C-alpha cells in the first residue's frame, strides 16, 4: 500500500487514504482483487492459449464429442464456490470493520455513544433525535445538512456552522449526523470518509478519523439535480492547535444561523467555486428541526430547466 501511495499520482484519490477507515478500504480492494486474479488470470491465459492452440489451421488434437467430465464439472462448481466462500467471509469482516454506524476499526460500537446509536436505526425514518453528547472527550460531532445545492456543516457542541467547508482536527474521531432538506445526496471525501447517503426525512451516520493533516476535495456523489456538479466542499484536516484557532475565528463570525436563516439560505442555490460561509451562534438542534420540518412536508421547490447562471442570478 505504501508502494501504491508512493508511485501513484495524488490524483488517484483512493490510493492515498488518510486514517484507519480509508486505509482498510484500500486494503480490502487490494485483497479482493488479488484473490479474484488467482482465478481470473489463469482463465484468461487459458482462453488465449486454447484460442491459439485449437485454431482450425493448427490441426491440433480434435475431440468432436467431448462434452462431459464429472471431475471437471465438480471442479468448475467447487472452485468458484471456495473463492466466493473466502470472499464472503472477508466481506463480512470488513463490512463490520468500516460500518458507518460504529466502525470496528475505530473501536466498534464503543466509538459511537450508545444513546446516539439508538437514535439512528438503519435507514428507518421518523426516529427522534437525541441531544448531542457534549463531552469533549468523545468524538467530534458534526451535523451535515444538504440543500439544493450546498453543504451545511454544523458543529453542535461549539454552536458554529459553515457552508461548503469542513474542518476537523487530526487524530480525533469525527461523527457525522446527516440529513437532507431536499433530495438525496451522497457524502464523500475519497481520502477520508466512505460514501454515505444523505436523505431527506431520514438520518444517517458516518464516521472517520484522520491520521495526517491535509486539504481534500469533498463532494456529493449521488445526483441531486441541476446544481449537483457544483456541490464540492473543502475538507481540511488540521492540527488540534490550528483547529482551535479556526473554531475561535468562526465563533467570531457576525453571521448567525437560526432555522429562519437556514430556510432563507436553503433556497435553490448553485455555489459556483464552493465559496465557504461561516456562522456563529447556531441554533440548538438545527438538524433535528430541519428533519422534523421535512417530515412535516417542507419542500424547497426547484424551477424547471435550470442553467447554472439562472440559478446563480436568481438567488444571490
Amino acid at each position, binding site marked *: 500500500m505504501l508502494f501504491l501511495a508512493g508511485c501513484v499520482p495524488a490524483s488517484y484519490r483512493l490510493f492515498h487514504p488518510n486514517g484507519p477507515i480509508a486505509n482498510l478500504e484500500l486494503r480490502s480492494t487490494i485483497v479482493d482483487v488479488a484473490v479474484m486474479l488467482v482465478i481470473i488470470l489463469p482463465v484468461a491465459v487459458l482462453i488465449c492459449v486454447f484460442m491459439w492452440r485449437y485454431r482450425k489451421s493448427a490441426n491440433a488434437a480434435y475431440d468432436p464429442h467431448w462434452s462431459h467430465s464429472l471431475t471437471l464439472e465438480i471442479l468448475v462448481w467447487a472452485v468458484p464456490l471456495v473463492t466466493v466462500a473466502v470472499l464472503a467471509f472477508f466481506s463480512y469482516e470488513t463490512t463490520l470493520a468500516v460500518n458507518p454506524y460504529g466502525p470496528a476499526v475505530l473501536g466498534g460500537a464503543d466509538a459511537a455513544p450508545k444513546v446516539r446509536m439508538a437514535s439512528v436505526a438503519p435507514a428507518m*425514518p*421518523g426516529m427522534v433525535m437525541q441531544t448531542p453528547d457534549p463531552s469533549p472527550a468523545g468524538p467530534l460531532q458534526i451535523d451535515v445538512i444538504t440543500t439544493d445545492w450546498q453543504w451545511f456543516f454544523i458543529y453542535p457542541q461549539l454552536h458554529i456552522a459553515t457552508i461548503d467547508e469542513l474542518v476537523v482536527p487530526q487524530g480525533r474521531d469525527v461523527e457525522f449526523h446527516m440529513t437532507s432538506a431536499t433530495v438525496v445526496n451522497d457524502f464523500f471525501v475519497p481520502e477520508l470518509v466512505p460514501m454515505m447517503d444523505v436523505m431527506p426525512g431520514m438520518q444517517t451516520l458516518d464516521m472517520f478519523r484522520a491520521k495526517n493533516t491535509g486539504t481534500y476535495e469533498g463532494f456529493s456523489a449521488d445526483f441531486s439535480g441541476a446544481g449537483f456538479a457544483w456541490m464540492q466542499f473543502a475538507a481540511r484536516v488540521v492540527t488540534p492547535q490550528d483547529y482551535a484557532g479556526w473554531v475561535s475565528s468562526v465563533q467570531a463570525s457576525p453571521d448567525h444561523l437560526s432555522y429562519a436563516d437556514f430556510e432563507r439560505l436553503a433556497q435553490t442555490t448553485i455555489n459556483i467555486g464552493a465559496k465557504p460561509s461561516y456562522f456563529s451562534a447556531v441554533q440548538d438542534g438545527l438538524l433535528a428541526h430541519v428533519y422534523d420540518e421535512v*417530515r*412535516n*412536508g417542507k419542500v424547497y421547490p426547484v424551477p424547471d430547466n435550470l442553467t447554472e447562471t439562472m440559478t446563480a442570478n436568481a438567488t444571490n
Partner: protein
Amino acid sequence: MDVFVKPGGDVPPLWYYGHDDHDQIATKTFGFWLYMLSDALIFAGLFAAYAVLDQPMNMAGGPTAAQIVHPVAAFWQTMAVMTSVLAYSLATVALKTGNKAGVLLGMIVAFVLGLAFIGLELNDFANLMAQGITPDRSGFLSAFFVLIASHGLHMVFGLLWMFVLMIQCLRSGFSQDIVSRLLNLRMFWQFQASVWVCVYVFIYLRGAA
C-alpha cells in the same frame, strides 16, 4: 395417420406427420396462469408498499388503520365476493352439462353480487372522503386507498369481462373460445376473491386489532 418417414437403416424417424396435438384451451389456460402470476406480483408489490407505509411515522398526524377500517362493514363486502364466486362456480358446473340457462343465471347472480361489492367499496370510500380522509393526507392513507382501489379496479375489469362473456354466450353458445374464456374468468374471479381475503385480513382485521 401417424406416419414417420424412415430413411432406412437404424436411423429413427426424422419427420412427424401426426396431428398438431397442441391443446388450444390448455395453452390459453397456461398463458392465463402466467398472467395471474404477474398480477400476483403486482399485488405483492402493493402489499409490500402498504406494509412499509403502515408504520406510526407514516401516519403524518392523520388517522391510523384502526380509526378508519370497519371489519364488520367490510365483512359484507367479503360475503358479496364469496357468494359471487360461488354463483360463478355454479355457472361453470352448469357448463359441464351444456346448460345455457344455468350458466347465464349463475353469471347474472355473480355479476350482481360483484356490483354490490363495488357499490359497498365506493360507499366506504365516499364516507371516508367526506370526513377529509383522502389519499393525499398521509403516506399510510395513500397506500390504503391505492391498494384497495387496485383490487377494486381488477374487480371492475372482471365485471366488464363477465358482461361481455354473457353476451357472447347468448350469441354463439359454447364454442371452444368461449369455453376457455369462461374457465379463465373463473380463475380470475377466484383469484380476485383470494386477493380480497388478503386485503380483508391484512388491512381490515389486522388494522382493527
